[in-house]
């Protein structure tokens, strides 16, 4: 393993990306790939996608090939011949891809509707290294790599963690490339991944109504499909108070069309339901802001470096949280409210950050809301601004609270969990002292951290015990290697080890019942255990030992965070006062 981690000369490799998800996943994949292509310019990248979502990928000039999933339906039964029989079509399609001999294959499809199709495709196509989910021999879905297991364990189980989905897939592939292809291009300078000119565009792609707009205005695009209830009043306020601003309305739904009619004005361009992809990218490239809730257009705007005002909506059917698939990049705004975001909050935030160039932070957001007479509205929302962290801070996008923040225990754990993942998969360790020093301590936080410390000590012991049992099982199983046959005594002994491991898991569950914020550790253990790949008991016991090693590392990191946080809360000794500094009372 150590030899594989030595810097090696870069190899020219080919990569196949299986992305059968929606446009949001396509755009996030392109964001990750652009960063990777910059570091590995020789990498040849191909895509497998669905025909309905292929158009944007075909507009990217550094993508070598795009394979569409074949169409299998025939118009009538009589048209079915041996050549267009569905099985023959699928087999020929797979054969055509196999002939390309890809070095790496990564499955980045997470959309529930297409995850199984993508996993089957991933299993069918050979490659030297595979990442992502696949179909195991028992026809269930498994994961090839730890980042994919992490995603299954934490992201799909609504465990709060602070790594954006784009950062997860970027790091997953980048780390694999560093190992298999060598270190990145040393000449690759730091450069912005997103760009207003991300897609190839033709000069014919300008919508006539957009072409005839007043050119002396600053434009804000509003995605009416997702921002319905606030839009009419917001646009009215902008038109009345900001003569230098124009609004362009986007969307497709019938409700959006009805609403757009209500906003007819000289400085409003209504393109609802009448714009294609090329026209959209051209238009967005001319806008200062996009206002939208969850939609692929947010991922597109991120890719094109257009600032987004993102209104968080509670979408229970959607598996990712806004911190994981919200706008990516610097200086986007996120507004979250317990109920829905009202127009005053939206207007206050948009005007504050829209005039940053003018006030340069000399006016606080609280003061700005107060000047607008909207102080009460600021209390109803949480306002975040996105920032790309430096590599010293762990990299990736983060969302920093702009409105006043009371630092909760949940927020503390949220940060610690993200750092745990970075330590596990990237070997990167945070500067804990610097991080802790920024935390505003409060009695409730101290009390909860003290409580979690006790649970952590139990988990440390359990991880150690699990490691010991796995090792004993491995040694025992090595001794009784006998294929499918073993004595009853050996079978019973192995069963005892198995039961002990189950007891350890049961005890970990009890710890999590006491401290639910540690559920992530148990979920991670369970996900890893369901992905054991060893073909013998000894091999699986060895893998189990590695899993307990990882758990110990994670638990140790939480423990260090807890210790250092609590040490800040300890009362500090005041410098002793010497007699010389005491002014004697005057006898008079």
């Amino acid at each position, binding site marked *: 393993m150590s030899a594989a981690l030595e810097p090696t000369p870069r190899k020219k490799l080919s990569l196949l990306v299986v992305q059968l998800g929606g446009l949001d996943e396509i755009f996030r994949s392109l964001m990750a790939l652009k960063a990777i292509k910059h570091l590995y310019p020789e990498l040849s990248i191909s895509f497998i996608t669905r025909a*309905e979502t292929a158009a944007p990928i075909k507009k990217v000039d550094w993508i070598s090939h795009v394979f569409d999933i074949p169409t299998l339906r025939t118009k009538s039964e009589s048209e079915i011949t041996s050549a267009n029989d569905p*099985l023959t079509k*699928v087999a020929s399609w797979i054969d055509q891809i196999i002939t390309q001999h890809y070095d790496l294959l990564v499955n980045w499809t997470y959309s529930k509707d297409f995850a199984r*199709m993508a996993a089957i495709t991933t299993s069918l196509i050979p490659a030297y290294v595979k990442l992502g989910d696949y179909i195991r021999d028992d026809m269930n879905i498994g994961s*090839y790599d730890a980042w994919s297991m992490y995603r299954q364990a934490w992201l799909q189980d609504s465990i709060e963690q602070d790594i954006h989905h784009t950062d997860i897939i970027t790091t997953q592939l980048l780390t694999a490339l560093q190992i298999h292809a060598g270190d990145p291009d040393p000449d690759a300078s730091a450069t912005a991944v997103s760009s207003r000119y991300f897609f190839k565009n033709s000069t014919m792609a300008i919508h006539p109504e957009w072409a005839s707009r007043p050119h002396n205005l600053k434009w804000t695009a509003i995605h009416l499909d997702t921002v319905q209830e606030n839009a009419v009043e917001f646009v009215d306020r902008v038109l009345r108070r900001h003569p230098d601003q124009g609004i362009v309305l986007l969307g497709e739904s019938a409700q959006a069309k009805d609403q757009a009619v209500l906003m007819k004005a000289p400085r409003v361009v209504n393109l609802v339901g009448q714009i294609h992809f090329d026209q*959209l990218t051209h238009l967005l490239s001319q806008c200062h802001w996009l206002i939208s809730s969850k939609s692929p257009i947010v991922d597109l705007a991120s890719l094109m470096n257009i600032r987004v005002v993102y209104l968080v909506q509670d979408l229970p059917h959607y598996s990712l949280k806004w911190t994981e698939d919200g706008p990516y990049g610097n200086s986007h705004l996120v507004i979250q409210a317990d109920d829905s975001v009202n127009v005053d909050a939206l207007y206050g935030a948009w005007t504050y950050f829209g005039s940053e160039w003018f006030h340069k932070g000399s006016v606080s957001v609280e003061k700005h809301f107060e000047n607008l007479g909207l102080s009460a509205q600021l209390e109803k929302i949480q306002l975040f601004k996105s920032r790309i962290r430096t590599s010293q801070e762990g990299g990736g996008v983060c969302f920093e609270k702009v409105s006043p923040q009371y630092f909760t225990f949940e927020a503390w754990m949220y940060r610690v969990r993200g750092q745990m993942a970075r330590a596990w998969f990237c070997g990167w360790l945070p500067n804990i002292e610097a991080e802790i020093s920024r935390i505003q301590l409060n009695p409730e936080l101290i009390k909860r951290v003290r409580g979690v410390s006790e649970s952590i000590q139990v988990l440390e012991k359990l991880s150690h015990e699990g490691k010991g049992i796995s090792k004993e099982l491995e040694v025992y199983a090595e001794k009784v290697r006998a294929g499918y046959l073993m004595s009853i005594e050996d079978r019973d002994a192995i069963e005892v080890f198995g039961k002990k491991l189950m007891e350890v898991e049961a005890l970990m569950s009890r710890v999590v019942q006491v401290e639910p914020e540690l559920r992530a550790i148990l979920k991670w253990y369970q996900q890893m255990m369901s992905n054991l790949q060893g073909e013998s008991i000894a091999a699986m016991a060895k*893998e189990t030992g590695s899993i307990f090693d990882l758990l110990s590392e994670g638990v140790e990191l939480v423990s260090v965070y807890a210790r250092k946080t609590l040490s800040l809360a300890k009362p500090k000794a005041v410098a002793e006062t010497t007699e010389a500094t005491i002014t004697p009372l005057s006898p008079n």
Partner: protein
Amino acid sequence: MVADIQILQGKIIDDPEQRTKNISRLIEELALEILTEEELAIAIAPQSNKSAEGAA
């Protein structure tokens, strides 16, 4: 990092020609998945004619 590199960095398959044991079954499953999606797409087409322009 202590875990096996293969667990962390993806399955390393030395023989590119090596394919899974269930090829014919997987091809059938894939065809079935594609056909089901096509049926669904036709069923929902009147309500939502989404395409690559769906971003807007």
